[in-house]
């Protein structure tokens, strides 16, 4: 019953998509287009490669000349792991400690907003209640509140609740800042699911809980994954929120805060930043590369519908 409807409506568009895809493929396989793509890719990658090479150069070389001097192999450039060694083990507290802090900050900050947003999005999409549209617009409009204006009022509130010095301020703040966009994206994606599916399930006697978990959840995996990556990258790379709410205490400070301190009191150790940047980049790169398929698909699906 549920599977019979979609193929009927999808068949013509699918064919259309296919012809468009072949056309596009033909156009993109043009050698000039390929060349342009390769050139852009190389240009785009050069700064990152430069940073990577810099991270392996000795301090004296870094301050003396640019990373491209490594290419003068006849001058026998020296490469070293000293920067990584100092970045990882040079501080009083091992970088592993901050790595754990970042994970402890990031995972709940991804899980909490997604769980809440899924519930909210379901209600906005499938439960008809009074003032739904106004409430939805209000939630959506919250996206335009810059987080900077909320920092001091929130911090004051956390202090009154006695939460400072724990992970709670960071978790709560990240969740708050993520919720409007999460609700908006997941709502749009849920709206996109044919109503007949939900109606059919309802006729079969499913309640909200069953519809949510059995009918919608399997279809929502790409959207959830894409938002999870998005939120993961944002929280992992965040400095402002953790700096304000967690501060620099070794028991709660994440990696980004530590890396920002790495350059020393007067910025004289800036050469360590290249190594620090690559250490903090590893996890997001793994996450992004392995889930990028969802990232593109989910973002497109959620955002193009009004």
């Amino acid at each position, binding site marked *: 019953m549920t599977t019979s409807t979609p193929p009927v409506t999808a068949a013509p568009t699918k064919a259309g998509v296919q012809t468009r895809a072949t056309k596009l493929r033909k156009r993109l396989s043009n050698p000039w287009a390929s060349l342009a793509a390769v050139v852009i890719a190389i240009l785009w990658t050069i700064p990152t490669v430069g940073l990577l090479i810099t991270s392996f150069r000795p301090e004296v070389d870094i301050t003396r000349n640019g990373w491209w001097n490594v290419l003068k192999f006849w001058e026998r450039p020296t490469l070293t792991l000293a920067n990584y060694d100092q970045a990882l083990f040079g501080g009083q507290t091992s970088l592993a*400690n901050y790595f*754990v802090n970042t*994970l402890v900050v990031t995972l709940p900050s991804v899980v909490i907003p997604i769980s809440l947003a899924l519930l909210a999005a379901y209600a906005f999409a499938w439960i008809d209640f009074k003032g739904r549209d106004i409430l939805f617009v209000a939630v959506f409009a919250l996206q335009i509140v810059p987080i900077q204006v909320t920092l001091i009022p929130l911090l*004051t509130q956390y202090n*009154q609740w006695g939460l400072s010095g724990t992970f709670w301020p960071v978790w709560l703040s990240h969740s708050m800042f993520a919720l409007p966009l999460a609700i908006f994206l997941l709502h749009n994606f849920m709206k996109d699911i044919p109503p007949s599916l939900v109606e059919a399930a309802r006729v079969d006697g499913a309640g909200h809980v069953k519809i949510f978990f059995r009918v919608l959840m399997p279809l929502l995996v790409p959207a959830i994954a894409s938002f999870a990556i998005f939120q993961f990258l944002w929280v992992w790379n965040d400095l402002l929120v953790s700096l304000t709410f967690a501060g620099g205490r070794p028991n709660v400070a994440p990696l980004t805060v530590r890396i920002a301190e790495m350059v020393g009191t007067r*910025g*004289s150790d800036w050469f360590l930043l290249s190594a620090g940047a690559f250490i903090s980049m590893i996890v997001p790169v793994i996450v992004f590369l392995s889930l990028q*398929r969802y990232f593109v698909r989910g973002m497109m699906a959620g955002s193009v519908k009004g």
Partner: protein
Amino acid sequence: MRIKNARGAIALTAGASLALVLSACAPPMDEEPGGTDTGTDTGTTEPTGDVAEGCEDYAVYGDLSGKTVTVYTSIVEVEQVDQEESYDKFEECTGAKIEYEGSREFEAQLLVRVESGSAPDIAYLPQPGLLNTIVNDFPDAIVPASAGTEANVDQFFSPSWKEYGTVNDTFYAAPLGANMKSFVWYNPSIFTEKGYAVPTTWDEMLALTDQIAADYPDSKPWCAGIESGDATGWPATDWIEDVVLRASGPEVYDQWVAHEIPFNDPAIKSAFDVADDILRDEARVNGGFGNVATIAITPWTDGGLPILPAGDDDPQCFLHRAANFYQNNWPEGTNVAEDGDVFAFYLPSIDGESSPVLGGGEFVAAFRDAPEVAAFQEFLSSDTWANEKARVTEGGGWVTANNGLDLNNLATDFDKLAAGVLGDPNSVIRFDASDLMPAAVGAGSFWREMTAWFAEGKDTQAVLDAIEASWP
């Protein structure tokens, strides 16, 4: 197939992150930084060097067991390590616990914390201007210095230092460490080789400059760099301040800082001209980097590096005016000594008689009215702490204006030189003017206009008029 791949990918990521969690968890949350675990037998009198024998010097602070004092500062690692180590003895003898937190975003974050009611117990303010802001904007948050602190400051610091920690006739913050900015870095071996003498007057310095220019036509005598991210321009303000102090004298300097004379006063203009003579003369700058305009784009951390010759070549540059903390920028292994790779001489005065000194430093402000906080503030202003700090700073690079400090405790000759100048009763010490001026000027137009002075070759009078116009 596709779905299988995607699931595989998720499993892979999950596995990878799990592995990271596990490996990161493997070393147990190791011991507290600072090594407080050695203090199990508090009160025993083990000889720990020739500075403090046991805990006699700490008896005045009483028993503070179970109390915690939080410290927030802009001093981060590497300097943080020595800083924390200098409190070990205090913690051991009094039983108090010092929780140290350093941040490079200190100046912005401190105001956020004070405003949101989570101020630290103690903060080290790097500028008197910041103290002024806090006292005026949050009079309830900050606590005046304890009586013991004030007594210490009266005893160990010159009155001008006390004044920098005073706002509206109330004394709030005691000086901690100090910077000595009136230094010119040079290469001692070249000086010996060529028979150059360290100049003792401004004219001798200019003569030396011309001598170097004649001896090394491929290099330039001076080098400078003022790029420093969003604070670009500050090293140039130090240059100008040093010259104002020399060309126009400390009285004019004080009036200039307090805006009793306008920024574009002829006295200031003449000081700019003295600096102009060196810094915007293509024959004299910018050794190792290029023309005058490169001063604006050279990072201040790199500004003096051409003094060190690469291999057997002649150095690209010979003289670089920078503060004592510039010694941290020399690459590892550089011997900072009078007979080493680099050393510094005191930037001479113009009249050759007075000895004006441009200085800077941190100030210890308290934000909680409690005995342990007052005791710690008092401790930091004492000679006990100054000597302890000097003793634990084995690598050098730290001085104070505390005249209870025994210079022999300092690690390096260079620190002894800097501390000697700071502690010399004949020195006329003035605090960094840009740190005292309103932020719109001292951390705004002064920086910007100095950058334009170099980068665009902007006319001096136009620069002065623009800064004057921006004074709030």
